[in-house]
C-alpha cells in the first residue's frame, strides 16, 4: 500500500462522505457476520415425503459480503486504486486452484455431467444439462470458498487499512468496537433466550452448534483485548470473567466448550498475562466446569454431545461417520485421493460407505469434521492448501506478536485461529456465513502485522474507551 500522498483540500468533503459510506458498509458487514439469518433456500424440503435432500441455505453474512464487495469494487474502480490494494497471499489462490483442479478431475462430477449432456440437442439444453445437482454443489462451494478466503480478506484488510485515496485511513478501532458490540448484542440475545426458558439457545444462528462455534472463535479475541497488559484492572478482570460465564452459559456443545478452554489457555500463554489475571480466570474456569452441568433446562441439549438417539445405537453417528469418511478416502477407484470427489459433493458420495456400519439417524450425511469432509471433497491437495492458508496467516500473526509486543491483537487472532482449528473437528464452521468470521480473523492478522503503518495513539489510561484501541 502506498502512503504519503496528500489529498487536495477541494476533494476532502466528497472524500469524507464516501469514506463515511465505506465505514458504514464495513460496520454493517461486521454486524451481519455475527448472525446466520437464513434469507432463503435453494432446493425443496422433502422431509415430509420421508427422505431428506440437501438444500442450499442463503445466509445473511454471505449476501452482505457480496453486496459489500460490489460497493468496494465500484468505489475502487472509480478511484482507480486497484494497484494500491493489499492482495491475498499465494496460499489463498492455491486453495482456489485446488478447488478448480478438484472440479476438473472429479470422476463422479464429470461422469454426472457427461451423462446429463448426452441427450442435449441445442445450446440451451446443453447449458441446462451442465447444471447437475453435483455441479451446482461444486459451483456453490467454490463461490463460497472464493468469498471467504479471497474476497473477504481482501475486503476487510483494504477497508480497515484504507489506502485507496492516497493516505492511509485506519478503521481498526471502529471495526473492533463494532465487532465487540455486535458480540455483546448476540450474547445478550442468547441470554434472553436462556431466561425465556429456551432449552438450546442459538441467538441469531441457525443452530446451537453454529452459535457455539461462533462463540469459540470470538471469545479469544475479546479476552485478548480485556486481558492485555495495559488494562490489567479490576473491571477488566471482572468483564473477562463475565464474558466467559455468559457465553459458556448459553453454549450447549461440550466439544466447543473444551475448545474454548484450550484456546483461552493459548491466549494466556501468548499474552503472558499477569498472575492475578491468570488466577482469576482459572477460578472462573473451575466455577464454570462446576456450574455447567447444573443448568437444568439445558441438560437435554447438552447431553446430546454424548447421548445416543436410540437404544440400538452404540456410539454417536458423528464418530461412526469419521470412519465412514476414512473408508471413502481409501477407495481411490471412486475418486482421486489427491483431488477428491469434487467440492461440496461429500453427501452425494458417502452414503454407500456405511455398508455394515449403522446409519440410524436419517439425516443428510455430515461428519461435522471439516478436515475429513474437505479431504473427501477436494482431496489431500485441497486439505493441504486449506491448512497452508491457515498456517500462513498464523505465522503472520505470530510475527506481529513478536514485532509489536505491546499490541494485543495478534495474540487474540492466534487464540481465535487455534479455537477455529480445534472446533472444526466437531462443528464445521465455514458454512452458511460462519466463514466470514474466520476471514475477519485472517484479515486481523494482516492488520496486526501492519501496526507500524497506523498513527500511534497518545498516552493511554485505563479507561473503558482505551480498551478498544
Amino acid at each position, binding site marked *: 500500500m502506498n502512503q504519503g500522498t496528500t489529498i487536495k483540500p477541494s476533494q476532502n468533503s466528497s472524500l469524507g462522505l464516501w469514506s463515511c459510506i465505506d465505514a458504514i458498509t464495513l460496520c454493517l458487514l461486521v454486524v451481519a457476520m455475527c448472525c446466520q439469518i437464513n434469507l432463503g433456500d435453494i432446493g425443496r424440503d422433502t422431509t415430509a415425503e420421508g427422505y431428506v435432500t440437501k438444500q442450499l441455505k442463503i445466509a445473511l453474512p454471505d449476501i452482505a459480503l457480496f453486496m459489500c464487495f460490489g460497493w468496494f469494487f465500484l468505489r475502487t474502480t472509480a478511484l482507480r486504486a486497484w494497484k494500491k490494494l493489499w492482495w491475498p497471499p499465494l496460499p489463498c489462490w492455491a486453495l482456489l486452484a485446488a478447488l478448480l483442479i478438484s472440479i476438473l478431475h472429479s470422476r463422479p462430477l464429470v461422469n454426472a455431467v457427461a451423462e446429463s449432456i448426452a441427450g442435449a440437442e441445442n445450446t440451451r439444453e446443453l447449458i441446462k444439462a451442465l447444471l447437475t445437482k453435483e455441479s451446482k454443489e461444486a459451483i456453490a462451494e467454490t463461490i463460497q470458498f472464493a468469498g471467504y478466503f479471497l474476497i473477504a480478506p481482501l475486503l476487510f484488510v483494504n477497508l480497515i487499512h484504507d489506502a485507496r485515496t492516497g493516505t492511509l485511513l485506519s478503521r481498526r478501532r471502529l471495526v473492533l468496537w463494532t465487532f465487540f458490540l455486535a458480540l455483546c448484542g448476540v450474547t445478550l440475545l442468547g441470554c434472553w433466550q436462556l431466561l425465556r426458558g429456551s432449552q438450546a439457545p442459538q441467538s441469531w444462528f441457525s443452530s446451537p452448534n453454529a452459535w457455539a462455534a461462533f462463540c469459540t472463535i470470538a471469545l479469544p479475541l475479546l479476552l485478548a483485548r480485556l486481558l492485555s497488559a495495559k488494562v490489567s484492572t479490576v473491571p477488566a478482570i471482572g468483564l473477562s470473567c463475565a464474558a466467559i460465564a455468559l457465553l459458556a452459559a448459553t453454549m450447549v456443545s461440550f466439544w466447543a466448550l473444551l475448545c474454548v478452554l484450550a484456546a483461552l489457555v493459548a491466549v494466556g500463554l501468548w499474552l503472558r498475562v499477569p498472575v492475578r489475571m491468570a488466577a482469576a480466570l482459572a477460578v472462573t474456569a473451575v466455577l464454570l466446569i462446576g456450574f455447567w452441568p447444573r443448568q437444568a433446562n439445558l441438560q437435554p441439549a447438552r447431553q446430546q454431545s454424548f447421548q445416543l438417539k436410540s437404544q440400538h445405537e452404540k456410539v454417536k453417528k458423528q464418530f461412526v461417520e469419521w470412519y465412514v469418511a476414512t473408508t471413502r478416502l481409501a477407495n481411490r477407484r471412486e475418486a482421486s485421493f489427491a483431488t477428491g470427489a469434487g467440492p461440496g459433493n461429500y453427501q452425494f458420495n458417502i452414503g454407500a460407505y456405511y455398508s455394515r456400519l449403522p446409519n440410524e439417524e436419517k439425516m443428510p450425511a455430515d461428519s461435522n469434521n471439516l478436515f*475429513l469432509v474437505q479431504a473427501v471433497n477436494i482431496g489431500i491437495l485441497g486439505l493441504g492448501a486449506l491448512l497452508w492458508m491457515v498456517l500462513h496467516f498464523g505465522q503472520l500473526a505470530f510475527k506481529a506478536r513478536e514485532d509489536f509486543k505491546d499490541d494485543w491483537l495478534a495474540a487474540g487472532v492466534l487464540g481465535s485461529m487455534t479455537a477455529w482449528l480445534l472446533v472444526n473437528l466437531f462443528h464445521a464452521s465455514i458454512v452458511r456465513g460462519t466463514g466470514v468470521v474466520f476471514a475477519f480473523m485472517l484479515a486481523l492478522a494482516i492488520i496486526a502485522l501492519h501496526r507500524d503503518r497506523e498513527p500511534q495513539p497518545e498516552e493511554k489510561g485505563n479507561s473503558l474507551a482505551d480498551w478498544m484501541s
Partner: protein
Amino acid sequence: MFLIYGIARNAGPEEGFSLQFAALPGDKFVIPYSAYVVIFTAILTGPYWWFHRLNSTYALLGGIVLVGGLSFFSFFLLKRFFPAGTTEILDPTPLPSLSMLLVEYGCVALLCHAVAARRRTRRLALRVLPAIMLALAARHQFFPATEDGE
C-alpha cells in the same frame, strides 16, 4: 505431480512386495511398484527437502498426519463398540490402504518440495499448472472415466 502420480499408480501393475496383517488374515497387502519408486526417490532427494523450508509441504504433511490420526482414532473408538474383522460390522480393510496412500502422497509432497526448492523450477511449475488443468479437462471430455479404472 500429484495427478501424474495418481495416474501412474493406477496404470502400473499392482504387484510387488506384499505384507500380511494379523487383523486381515488371508489377505495380502500389495505395495505397487509406483510406491517403491516414489518412496525411494523421496529418500534419495532427502538432502534437497531436508534443508529447505516450505510451508506448503509442512501444511500438506500436517493434513496427511491429521487424516491418518483421525482415521486410526475413529477405528479404535468404534472397535470398543462393534466387532472388528473383514466379515464383521467394523471392517479394518481400508486402514492399510489409506495408510499406504498417505505415505505415498507424503513422499510425493517431499519430492515436490525438493523440486520447488529451486526458484526457477517453482516458477516453471506454476506456469505449467494451467496447461495441466486444460489437459485434464480435455482428458475427461474426450476420454470419460469408466467405473473400473481412474
